[in-house]
């Protein structure tokens, strides 16, 4: 296996992009990444585009060849849409990583794109629920906020955590995105704002949830041995892990005995840390899958940053703040930067690359090692990637 580096990044804002088509978003983000890398687009040997709900919501599939044509990529390359619910584009990142690491290709473009805000919330909620089991869960009226609400209630029951502790995740992540020009929300919220917002799925309230968003993000990957031809600031990918969990909540509980862990996250993190020969304490900055406040807490435990049941206290103690011991989601995370589902994984990598280059708007001091964690479905697919400053 040879080294792989990120040599260029691009992104639209994660926002309400009402006047942009899905194709335009993807093309804008990819064009920025290609131009930043300074790579001739004819050198790109494969293109993976993460997307989840465009088939259901927009009746548009086969996105990758469409975008590849718009971008002027070669005809003799794989241009493939990658789907794994909210984990889609980080799966593409892993596929691109593997193709370069194995020596098949030298330069690969990976991206994610999603257009959601043009549709009503009940329609989007239904489209997202397609990652569940149609028989046992969808017919019962289950939703994704509902899934994380089950986790929240059980977490409170087992560990005695409070909704105020969960709310502190939202307060922190909103504060973090004030300086992030790509973020959906640029305003702070108070603890009272969060706990007094309306219930979505008890006990989770509106500000415990990430917003429906549009957006696209892209990365140009290159064999590390050639990275310096393109950039003075390559960011190496030194760990890549992926795991599969369960399609339904009851399967997770029946197979694993608990709802308070996503087994696919644990598997992905284990692989990534082993590959990088690092441990959680070595990581300087984290972008993880905080689709709901409770998700950030459970993820932080699954990734090994905190013991079981201690993630909520860690937030309260400020350990996950930008200037804390282990900064989590300095971009604002899914909760405040936004969650255009198929774009989120590449968006997280975009933020970490900026951190490790030392050019982030909400910079973690001397960040050298960064981790991204992306989750799809009821933890059905999760990835973890570890990045290192390569200069």
């Amino acid at each position, binding site marked *: 296996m040879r080294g792989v580096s990120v040599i260029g990044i691009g992104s639209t804002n994660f926002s309400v992009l009402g006047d942009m088509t899905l194709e335009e978003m993807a093309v804008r983000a990819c064009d920025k990444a290609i131009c930043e890398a300074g790579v001739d687009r004819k050198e790109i040997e494969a293109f993976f585009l993460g997307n989840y709900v465009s088939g259901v919501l927009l009746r548009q599939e086969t996105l990758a060849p469409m975008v590849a044509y718009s971008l002027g990529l070669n005809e003799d390359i794989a241009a493939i849409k990658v789907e794994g619910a909210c984990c889609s584009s980080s799966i593409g990142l892993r596929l691109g990583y593997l193709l370069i690491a194995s020596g098949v290709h030298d330069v690969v473009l990976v991206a994610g794109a999603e257009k959601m805000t043009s549709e*009503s*919330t*009940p*329609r989007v*909620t*239904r489209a997202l*629920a397609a990652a569940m*089991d149609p*028989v*046992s*869960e969808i*017919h*019962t*009226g*289950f*939703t994704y*906020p*509902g899934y994380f*609400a*089950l*986790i929240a*209630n*059980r977490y409170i*029951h087992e560990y005695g955590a409070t909704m105020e502790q969960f709310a502190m995740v939202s307060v922190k992540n909103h504060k973090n995105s004030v300086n992030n020009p790509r973020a959906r929300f640029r305003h702070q919220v108070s603890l009272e704002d969060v706990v007094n917002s*309306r*219930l*979505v*799925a*008890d*006990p*989770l309230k509106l500000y415990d949830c990430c917003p429906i968003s549009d957006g696209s993000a892209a990365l140009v990957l290159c064999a590390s041995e050639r990275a310096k031809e393109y950039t003075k600031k390559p960011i190496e990918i030194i760990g890549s892990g992926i795991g599969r969990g369960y399609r*339904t*909540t*009851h*399967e997770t*509980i*029946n*197979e694993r005995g608990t*709802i308070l862990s996503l087994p696919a996250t644990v598997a992905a993190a284990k692989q990534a840390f082993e590959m990088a020969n690092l441990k959680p304490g070595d990581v300087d900055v984290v972008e993880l899958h905080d689709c709901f406040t409770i998700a950030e807490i459970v993820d932080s435990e699954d990734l090994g940053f905190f013991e079981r049941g201690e993630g909520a206290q860690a937030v309260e103690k400020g350990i996950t703040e930008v200037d804390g011991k282990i900064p989590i989601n300095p971009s604002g995370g899914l909760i405040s930067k936004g969650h255009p589902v198929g774009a989120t994984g590449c968006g997280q990598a975009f933020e970490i690359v900026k951190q490790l280059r030392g050019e982030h708007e909400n910079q973690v001091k001397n960040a050298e090692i960064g981790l991204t964690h992306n989750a799809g479905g009821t933890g059905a697919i999760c990835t973890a990637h570890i990045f290192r400053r390569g200069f």
Partner: protein
Amino acid sequence: MENKNSREKIKALECNTCRKLYFPPKYHCSQCDKSDFSEINLEGEGKVYSFTVIRMPFEEFVEEAPYTFAEVALDEGLVVPGRFTNEDEKDIKINARVSFVRYDSGVNWFKIR
């Protein structure tokens, strides 16, 4: 109380080799790698593992909201999703005892005891 004779049972799949239980569908046993199941009926007594009240459902359920959704841990050793026929919020809590009432259009209906 429900009339016990008219009450349906919960359908489950039991692996004919290792006896592991599954809530359908399941085509291959994850414990013993065999693909031979029997459909069995469970009594459906159990307790709430966790629950939530869905207030922002997807389109087909907008008229029904708010409603409670729970994962129920059956005494017979299987966790299944379900809804409740009696929606008294103060009674629905983790470990509350529940009984199966009926299976209807893909939904397990339970009653808080």
